[in-house]
């Protein structure tokens, strides 16, 4: 008999609908970080939570076939380098973290120069970093778990 993975069928169906909505809300928080409350850190944690939602509902074996740990490690390093690169870009205009890009009109989506790019970099870093911590905690097999399965 095939072993049942994850939670019940109801949870899996609802998860398929809600995960994309949570992801969309996280992207909204990230991209509007310079207009409304929120920003790269909060949006990154929300997106990491949407992936965690998938892992919790479908069980770690099935979910981790699609979501590789090495991919998230690479994304996290890329986010950190992107943030540092934006900071170094300011050196071309004078000093570290100078806002060199055109500022635009306040209260519009494409305004405030490097702040949008910084939010995106922090979002990549935070979401990938927190999710890879969760993957590492989920994969690890404690000696207690082995003893529990043997006693079954």
């Amino acid at each position, binding site marked *: 008999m095939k072993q049942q993975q994850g939670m019940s069928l109801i949870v899996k169906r609802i998860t398929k609908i809600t995960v994309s909505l949570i992801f969309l809300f996280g992207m909204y*928080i990230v991209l509007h*970080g*310079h*207009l*409304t*409350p*929120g*920003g790269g*850190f*909060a949006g990154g*944690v*929300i997106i*990491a*939570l949407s992936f*965690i939602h998938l892992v*919790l509902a479908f069980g770690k074996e099935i979910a981790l076939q699609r979501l590789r740990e090495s991919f998230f*490690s690479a994304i*996290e390093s890329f986010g*950190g380098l992107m*943030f*540092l690169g934006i*900071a170094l870009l300011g050196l071309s205009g004078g000093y*570290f*973290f100078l*806002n060199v890009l055109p*500022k*635009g*009109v*306040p*209260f519009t989506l494409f*305004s*405030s*120069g*490097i*702040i949008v790019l*910084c*939010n995106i970099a*922090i979002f990549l*870093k*935070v979401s990938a*970093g*927190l999710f*890879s*911590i*969760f993957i*590492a*905690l*989920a*994969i*690890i*097999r404690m*000696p*207690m778990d*082995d003893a529990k399965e043997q006693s079954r």
Partner: protein
Amino acid sequence: MIELHVLLGLMIIGAIVAMEIEDLLSSVIALGAVGFGLTLAFLLLRAPDLAITQLVVEILSLIILIRATVGVKLPREKIRSRIGYFIFAVIFVALFLSFSVKAIAQLPLFGDSLMRIGSQYVAEAKIKTAAANIVSAIILDFRGYDTLGEATVLFTAVIGVLAVLRKSRKQA
């Protein structure tokens, strides 16, 4: 301001419950109540940025804590009550409270801006960065070094967790 004090009182009660209760899962839930109380306190103090961040980080840490404590029973150590410990505790708390009353009287009033640089940020943020959310303007433009340091702290934490867990996975 009265609702803030009620909220802070509830958070203190939740923290005491989290320490004293026997069951680990109930303790984690009481800890979550303290965290959500902190979220509401940030909202009452008109800091929605902090409230959002506190809420999502609280949910993440609750998921990890519940996963770690479900089905685990720790033997509870019984602390023998001695009269000496009690006297030491009373003396320490009395000293701490008397000094903190003196220290708190010296603090600036609530919401009072102590440094001139804060009012300068408020005045110039919209002109210099064109960001409507002034908190973003401060943490990513004026105070970019601090955010870089915070990102470094998170990076180091992730590297540390992955290094420790990878070793124990290889042994298993």
